[in-house]
């Protein structure tokens, strides 16, 4: 059994999600009684493999479990995949996977490009590190979920404006539900991103004060990007609330949620592809400091 679990790779669950996405994409093209079973089967298998993969990594981590950028991306993907599976079983006729699964696969892809080395840790700042990571994870999931709901709102609203009946295999949730999801996601994203940013500042300050680990300079690109992301998310949440009692509130919230996703993606890409001293061990940080003063 242990051998089986340790043999699960990212490719296993990514491939299962990909097959599930293929099934979802084929819904508007043709009808099939078998597709539903295949879809649920692959989505469940992917989620199970994903869960076992993370559990295995958590159990075999010498320090704090799941403490690399690789793990955090996979955790975010796991939460969204779990949400998708729940929606698939609770409401099988509603098409959500076509929008949610690409985000899940995108996060898995980002994980593959990220470092698997754990973030530098010291016992004194471990708790702050976990708080910082957890809030950032929650913010990322909220932004992604809100953007998916926002995109579906815009598609559904376009259909209703054009006075067309739902296309075969493309039945979306109601505008009411999607608008409520988008609005809640905007607030959750803003508060958790702010809490993540503040906890990151505290973590950095504690490290600096105690001289425990390499500190991240205030002008580090990731700090600046995260600061801008937090500012954007708070502004978007306030704007969403400000429009709440106006007829265009849902449309504004939908567009803002998409914009938030673009900002988040840019921030992630910067983190994955850019040069930073954020979250790297002291030896690497010194090397980076020589290249990028």
């Amino acid at each position, binding site marked *: 059994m242990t051998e089986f679990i340790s043999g699960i790779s990212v490719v296993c669950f990514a491939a299962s999600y990909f097959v599930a996405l293929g099934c979802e994409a084929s819904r508007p093209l043709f*009808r*099939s009684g078998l597709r539903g079973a295949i879809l649920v089967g692959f989505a469940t298998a992917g989620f199970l493999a994903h869960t076992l993969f993370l559990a295995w990594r958590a159990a075999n981590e010498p320090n704090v479990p799941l403490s690399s950028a690789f793990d955090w991306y996979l955790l975010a993907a796991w939460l969204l995949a779990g949400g998708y599976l729940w929606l698939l079983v609770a409401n099988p006729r509603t098409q959500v996977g076509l929008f949610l699964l690409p985000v899940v696969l995108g996060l898995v892809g980002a994980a593959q490009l990220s470092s698997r080395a754990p973030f530098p840790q010291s016992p004194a700042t471990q708790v702050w590190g976990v708080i910082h990571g957890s809030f950032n994870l929650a913010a990322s999931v909220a932004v992604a979920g809100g953007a998916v709901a926002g995109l579906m709102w815009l598609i559904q609203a376009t259909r*209703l404006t054009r*006075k067309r*009946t739902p296309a075969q295999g493309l039945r979306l949730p*109601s505008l*009411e539900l999607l608008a409520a999801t988008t609005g809640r996601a905007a607030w959750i994203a803003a508060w958790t991103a702010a809490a993540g940013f503040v906890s990151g500042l505290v973590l950095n300050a504690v490290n600096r004060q105690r001289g425990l680990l390499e500190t991240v300079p205030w002008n580090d690109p990731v700090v600046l990007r995260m600061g801008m992301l937090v500012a954007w998310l708070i502004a978007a949440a306030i704007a969403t609330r400000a*429009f709440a009692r106006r*007829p265009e509130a849902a*449309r504004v919230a939908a567009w803002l949620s998409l914009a938030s996703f673009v900002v988040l993606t840019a921030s992630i890409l910067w983190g994955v592809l850019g040069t930073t001293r954020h979250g790297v061990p002291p030896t690497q940080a010194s090397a980076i400091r020589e290249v990028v003063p």
Partner: protein
Amino acid sequence: MTLAFVGGTHRTVPLALRERLAFSAEQAAEALCRFRDRFPGREVVLLSTCNRVELYAAGEEAAVPPPAEQLVSFLAECRGIDAAVLAPVLARESDEAVVRHLFSVASGLDSMVLGEPQIVSQVKQAWALAQRTETAGPLTGGMFQAALRTAKRVASETALGRERLSIPSVAVADFARGVFERFDDKRVLVIGAGKMAHETLRYLREAGAHDIVVVNRTADRAHRLAARLGGRPGRFDDLVAELAAADLVVSTTGASEPVVPADLFARAESGREGRPLVVLDLAVPRDFDPAIGARPGVWLYSIDDLGAACEANRRSRHREMPGALAIVDEETRRFMGDLHHRSTAPVIERLRAGWTETGEAELDRLFRRVPSLDDAARAEIRQAFERYAAKMLHSPLASLRNESRSGPPHGLLDALKRLFDLKE
């Protein structure tokens, strides 16, 4: 002939005659009993709906179904109609055509509204009635079971019955449900007394709506309508306030000018606090100024919009026809193959019996000549004989089964009878 059918539908029988021809459940049961007494040994099922009356008869060998003209006369007699009036408008079919017709009927392909689902339960009821009156048998039983299986396949493998075709159902299921997740916390405002308001409210109530306000130009009428529609009356003078409080409006007045012009709606809009509003304007001429539909948060659907959606759904259903017909064809072929194969059963039985009899005789002779054989050896030899017989019979029986797929295998059956000297 094993299967026979006579019947008329909305396409061939005028409404006045269809009304006289229709059977109530009691009349149908009585007719089936009468058929059983008059044509003993035959099976019969009577399907009577508002759009069709059809008699399916079946029988084999000595009890083949009565000729079509006798079936027409029987129907005419049961309903007290002159057979000469009925004969020209009733269709007649036999054998495979009967099966194909029943499968099409059960799948909704022959219905007035293509793909309508009620016909399946009507077919089930007709068969159940025949079972209760003991006029159903193995032939009609197999045929009706296969018809229900065909209907199920058509429903699950095509989108024939998926799209809605009536304006109220499309308005609620495809549009109002696209905007609102639930209706039990929504206010429904009904303006006017048009016919479609009642039907639309039925769908809304099924969706959970219960807070219904009815307004009409005359208060007395509003009270009566509210009582009839299961809502509470509102004052027409309070239309602005009612519009501000409503989430969904069903408007069906007979007014010649818009009841809700843009300026009146603008006054109501300020009190809505941005809540979305669905307006189903089912009146002709329209009750709502079309410009209101361009306001943010307002989803306005006129009767033409909904009619166009229904028409699109109807076209979509027709596009599913080839797929549905292919299923009916496949199931018909399968059923007829089974039916033909069934007719070979007596010959196969006699063939097997002959082989078994000869084998047993040879075994007896062998065991008498070699009395030293113990029980285990005898059992081995017996099994070897049985295996040999089964292997020798396999090829002719497989040929019979294959031949049955394209029709009754009379030639092969005759050949087998002569080759193996099988007596009747």
